[in-house]
């Protein structure tokens, strides 16, 4: 940034003072964003031979949607206040591609917790791994998505706050840095919101839709290749403890409502539907 260099301008020196008080040195934030790699939204689901989980071999993977919004919020806070954005993700080797995507979008460095799969952990077990990796970093802020698109438990951020002994707020759409900490906009049900003030360091779970997501630029993708990704083995972080809650099996949902599927060409199906809505459902 260019600063006024006129030597005898008192306004200029005042401006310099202000700059110093609010300088990036004091204002800057170290933000950790916990992200998860999940099956792509349109992935075809096949149940594995054991009936315990889905067949992962033929799945395309993507960055969890609300985690993408958490990353975006972190990048915008860094652009405003200065600082560092560190992404953190747990999972097997494949998670590396999602980490590179986050680095390409602008995160500064990454920590990957290497574990064969998250299937052997419950929500508390995963949060313990993440907490152990976050702690030595001493961040000002930890962000994560509201919930994962695969398991949808929506607990990781809240448990993480509990384990780190930090205050938290969930379902956050907007984050404002203040003198004493943060003011955040929290989504409630049925179109209501509230704002919450909380001190930093803090943990926030981010709802999707608060910001417009950026795309990685070609330059960003290139630079991501040189950024630091530190890998830590899960066993180094937290002693393996037996899960409290176990996913025993999965199944495809069975239809609860008897849905009449209308076959034929689009024109035939449309005509059949209008007829049904008139004579059977009587809603037209």
């Amino acid at each position: 940034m260019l600063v006024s260099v006129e030597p005898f301008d008192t306004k200029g020196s005042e401006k310099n003072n202000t700059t110093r008080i609010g300088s990036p040195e004091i204002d800057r934030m170290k933000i950790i964003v916990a992200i998860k790699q999940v099956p792509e939204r349109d992935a075809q689901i096949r149940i594995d031979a054991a009936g315990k989980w889905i067949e992962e071999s033929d799945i395309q993977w993507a960055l969890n949607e609300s985690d993408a919004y958490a990353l975006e919020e972190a990048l915008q806070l860094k652009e405003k206040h200065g600082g560092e954005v560190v992404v953190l993700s747990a999972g097997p080797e494949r998670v590396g591609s999602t980490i590179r995507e986050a680095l390409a979008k602008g995160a500064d460095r990454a920590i990957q917790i290497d574990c064969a799969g998250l299937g052997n952990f419950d929500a508390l077990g995963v949060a313990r791994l993440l907490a152990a990796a976050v702690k030595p970093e001493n961040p000002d802020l930890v962000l994560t998505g509201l919930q994962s698109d695969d398991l949808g438990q929506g607990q990781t951020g809240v448990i993480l706050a509990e384990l780190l002994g930090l205050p938290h707020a969930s379902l956050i759409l907007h984050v404002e840095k203040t003198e004493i900490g943060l003011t955040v906009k929290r989504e409630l049900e049925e179109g209501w919101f509230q704002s919450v003030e909380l001190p930093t360091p803090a943990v926030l779970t981010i709802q999707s839709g608060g910001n417009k997501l950026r795309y990685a630029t070609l330059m960003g993708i290139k630079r991501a290749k040189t950024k630091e990704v530190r890998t830590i083995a899960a066993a180094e972080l937290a002693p393996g403890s037996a899960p409290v809650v176990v996913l025993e099996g999965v199944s495809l949902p069975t239809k609860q409502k008897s849905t009449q599927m209308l076959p034929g060409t689009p024109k035939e199906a449309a005509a059949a539907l209008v007829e049904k809505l008139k004579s059977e459902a009587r809603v037209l």
Partner: protein
Amino acid sequence: MSGIWVVVEEREGGIGRISWEAVAAGQKLATLTGLAVNAVIPGAQSEAVAAEVAVRALGKVVRIEHPLLAAYTADGFTLALQQFFEAEKPEYVVFPHTYQVRDYAPALAARLGQVLIGDVVAIGSEGTAGNTPVFTRQLMQGRLNGFYRHTEGGPCFVSVQAGAFRADAIETGSAEVTVFSPAIEPAQIRTRPSERFRGSAQTVDLGSAQMIVSVGRGIKDAANLPLVQELATALGAELGASRPICDNGWLTMDRQIGSSGQTVSPKLYLAVGISGAIQHLVGMKGSQCVVAINKDQNAPIFEAADYGIAGDLFEVVPALTEAVKAARQ
């Protein structure tokens, strides 16, 4: 050990339907396990709410009362319930799966070394030894069911999805109401919540609409929206949307249907290119007649639909608009 405790949520001085559904889920657990069901209400002035709860078939009703619980905070509620459950040592704790519960129940469970089984849609015990309950949750945005079991030791924390249990099936009775006073210091509450407020002016009232054409991700681009608008116009229907459409700014937030948007119950709900994630379904499952158009024949929206067309919406919707126009002439 003190059986099953249902945490009833006070909402604007009353009790939301989902809290009654949590009571029904507690009674279902009682049938499976033979344990007694009780209810607990955290708050600052819950006499009236407790009186309403006490006329149901429950063992005990406890008001956890403290001035610092007047406004919800995760710190206050976690602390109060932690103290209460450490004293009571329940086998099961059942919550309604509300935004409030999502904000503190995972931390409460973790503090007691437990894990919340959240957003449960069914409780059963089929094929298990000794009637151990198995909790069904929806995975992969409703495209997969997962069966969860709590291992032994400590309370099992469960939250139940809106609409999964029948609130009208709760039996009446009369329970004694007592008060539990937790020890909470103001300094232990680290967050300061404001009063709740509405978002942008609500200009569309989908709640009273007779017909709604609702559009989801399948529309691919804002430029394709006129296609759906034409169908809505032909039907005389309001236009609604799933969350991603509003997140992208393609339609205003007041057209969003689902847990974070409006709850609707029109005569006809026509879902176009909506896969049917739980968050959307809870906002529209009260509709009288549901039609789904989606290219993926396994999309969960078809399970909530009376009529379905598995096909390309870009072909089906224009054909349907024409058919509606022809029928209306």
